[in-house]
Every structure is written in C-alpha cells, then in structure tokens.
C-alpha cells in the first residue's frame, strides 16, 4: 500500500513537472501553468464541472453496464458453441475494426441527438472489446472444470453460474480496462454534438471562448474521470478475483 502510494505520487510529480515545463516553453498561454489550472479546477468543480462530470460519468456507466449485459452472454455463446463461433466470428472480425465513431452520424439519425445516441456509441466501442475477450477466454476454460461440475450434478445453468462467470471475470475486467480509454475519447467527441452538458461540451466551449485555463480544468477533469473508472475496475477486480495469484493491478 505504502509503496503503491509512493509510486502514484512520483508519477504525478513527474507529470506536473513536464506540464510546467511545457507551459513555460509554449508561447501565448496556450498551455496554462498547472497551478492556475488547479486553482480554476477548484473554483469550477463544485458548480458547473461537477454537473458536467456527472453527466459524462452517467453516460460511461450506462454504456459499461449495457456492454457487460450483452457482450458477456454473447461472448460465452460464440466461444462455447463451435457452430455459432464459425458463423459469427467472420462477421465479428469485419465489424470489430470499424472505427465506431464513424457510426455516430447514423446513431444520431436513428436515436436523436440526446443521451441515447451518446451511450450507444460508447457501448459499441466497449461491446466488441468485451465480446472478443470473453469469446477467447470462454474457449480456454479447461474442460476438466466442466467435467467436475457435471459430475457434481451441475446443469448448463450451473456451468455458467459456477464455472464460466467466475473464470471469465478477469478477462471481462481487463477488456473493460483496455476499452475505457477509447470509450472516453469517443464519448468526448459525441458530447460536442447536441448537448450542453458533459465534459466534451465544456472543453470545446471553453476553447471557443479562448479560455485555456477553463479548457485545461475540463481536461484535468476528464483525466480524473478516467482515473475514477480505472480505480473502480481495479477495486472490483481486487474484490472479485481474490482467488487469483496477483489480483492487484498497477493503476492505483
């Protein structure tokens, strides 16, 4: 714990030092100094920024929940059923690399400019990430586990509940961790359309006003939002994967 805390502090100090150097080197105040941004953040956060963060976090959380609820069962089906796997894997390989952001105009046409199209675009990014990870992990569950379960009288439902779900949790969480970076980028972009709440809107609006300090306070807030999601995933992993040799990850 102590060591992890020291590591976190060291990393933060290095980041602030680089930021500070850049703020001095880049002319015209395009990059405001960390202390100015920090102060602005403290002023803005209790009011406007908190509301924007809550809106963005709500969208990410909805997309995370939706992707787990759909991609996990789908991944188990594709991974454990050879026929489904053969039929669906090629389709998956065509759809997976398509940049999901390219679908944003279509989603906005179909679902409007509101929250649903924003949640859906983030969901699409996460869905494929989780689906592929779950499919691969589901294929590799040692058959001995399933034999043992059947010998204890377990049915297919028990196999999902007591073998597949616990065996897949590490893969699900690490795919979420990988997907969250892209998901936040896509969320940011989608929030520049048709909304006046969300960190994406806040950052772009500050930029239009040429208020670089506000803009960076928004960016800082985005970073912290990402950190919050990662810390959440890591603490879930620590709680759910105590059975693993080294469940703690590096992020916190």
């Amino acid at each position: 714990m102590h060591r992890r805390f020291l590591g976190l502090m060291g990393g933060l100090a290095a980041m602030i030092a680089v930021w500070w150097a850049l703020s001095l080197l880049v002319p015209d105040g395009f990059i405001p100094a960390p202390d100015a941004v920090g102060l602005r953040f403290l002023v803005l956060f209790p009011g406007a920024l908190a509301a924007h963060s809550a809106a963005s976090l709500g969208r990410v959380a909805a997309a995370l929940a939706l992707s787990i609820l759909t991609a996990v069962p789908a991944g188990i089906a594709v991974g454990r059923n050879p026929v489904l796997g053969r039929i669906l894997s090629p389709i998956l390989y065509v759809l997976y690399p398509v940049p999901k952001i390219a679908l944003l105009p279509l989603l906005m046409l179909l679902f409007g400019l509101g929250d649903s199209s924003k949640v859906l675009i983030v969901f699409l990014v996460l869905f494929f990430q989780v689906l592929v990870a779950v499919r691969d992990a589901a294929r590799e569950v040692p058959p001995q586990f399933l034999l043992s379960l059947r010998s204890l009288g377990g049915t297919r439902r028990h196999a999902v509940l007591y073998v597949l779900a616990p065996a897949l949790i590490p893969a699900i969480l690490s795919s979420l961790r990988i997907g969250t970076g892209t998901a936040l980028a896509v969320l940011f972009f989608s929030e520049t359309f048709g909304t006046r709440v969300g960190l994406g809107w806040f950052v772009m609006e500050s930029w239009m006003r040429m208020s670089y300090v506000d803009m960076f306070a928004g960016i800082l807030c985005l970073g912290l939002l990402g950190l919050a999601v990662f810390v959440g995933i890591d603490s879930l992993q620590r709680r759910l994967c105590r059975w693993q040799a080294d469940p703690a990850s590096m992020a916190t």
Partner: protein
Amino acid sequence: MLELSECSAAYGSRAALSSVSLEVDDGRTACVVGPSGCGKTTLLMLAAGLKTPSAGMVLFDGKKIASGDRRVGLILQQYGLFPWFTVRDNVELGLRIRGAPPEERHCIAAREIARVGLAGCESLFPRELSGGQQQRVGIARAYALEPRLLLMDEPFSALDALSRESLQDLLLLSAQEREASTLLVTHSIEEAVYLGHVIWVLAGSPGRVAGRFENPRQGSREYRREPEFFRLCGDIRGLMEHEKAQ
C-alpha cells in the same frame, strides 16, 4: 455393484477402448493400472456417465449410469477444484447444486473438511494450499455427496512421495470407514496394489483388459513393506512388460 460389459469407446475415429468388461463390488476398491494412452481416463468417463460408450453397457446396481449420476462421485488429477471458490465453497458446491439448505451444507462441509484433516482451512483458496491439501479437498468434496461409488483419475500422481503416501493412507482409511466402493485409475503399480482389493491391468491401444489380480492382503498400512506386496507388484509388472513387448 458397477459393471462395465464389453464397453468400447472412441473419440471421433480414434478408438480408445475395445470391449472392456470389469466390475467393482460393493464396498470394495478396484484399481485399474496401465500405461499412458491405454484409455484409463476414458474408462472413468464411461463409469461417471460423462461419456457414452460406442458399444456395451455401463450399469450400477443394474441401472444405467447417466451424466451427473447422484450415486457417483468423481475426483480428477488436476483442475478438479474450482480456484475461484474457497475450500468451504468447493466442498459445498455439489450440495448447493442439489438444493441443500445452507445450515445443512455448512454442517456437512465442516465435517468432511475435518475428516480429511483440513479444519481451519475453510476460508482459503486452492492456490493457498499445497498439492496434497488440494487433493484432500477434492476427496472431501466427493464424500460430501455421500456417493455409492467414488471414481478417481490419477489422484496422487502429481504429488511428492511423502504426500502421496499420506493421501493413500487417508484413502485406505476412508474406503474402510465408508460404504462406498472405489474405482481408482493409476499408472503406479505400487499404488494399485496398496489400495485395490482387485487390480485390473489395461493394455494396448485401444485399451483392453489384459489381466485381473485378486489382492486379499490389501487393507493394512504395513502391507506396503511385506514380501507379498512386492511379489504381486512384480507379477503385475511382468504382465505389463509382456503386453508392451507384443
């Protein structure tokens, strides 16, 4: 009584067993010994109802064995325990699947865990246990369901010599204390002779029964050091070498 009559089995086009007949009498331990690849594990899968024979029949007390048969418990060499469950949850799992109420589950699990000498380890995960301790949990889990027949696939082959002997002693004692019969598959002749009332030798590929040995002196811990023990081991080894040479 477990009866396999003229059972054959195959994986796709590859035959694994060819017309194998053997039986395990009530309350007795039968050991199947044979080289790798002779279909020993397949034989257990048939007895557990987890694989259907391509020919022949598997009967227990005259009735066909089915997948997940309540009368049968199975202990595998590795991966038998679920690493994501604690010792207690592993032992309780079969009872939970059968819908036993929580108090009953806890009570049975505590009793079985204590019987294999692991009281106090209930909350540990399998990775925190030694190989021998893990296999003890496997034994506790199988006995928790009070099976009439216990099937074991190379249960001790991954253990060091001392742990293996102490687990063999535990199994010998358990088999004497309980009413269940046991079918144990192993590649170790000494293990088969120490534990089995009857020893079946499997040979060839696809596997078939090459011989059957009665082992009347089985049942005491001293047997391991007696001349009869070594004589029987020698006889079985002779048969196996003869089969291998053909």
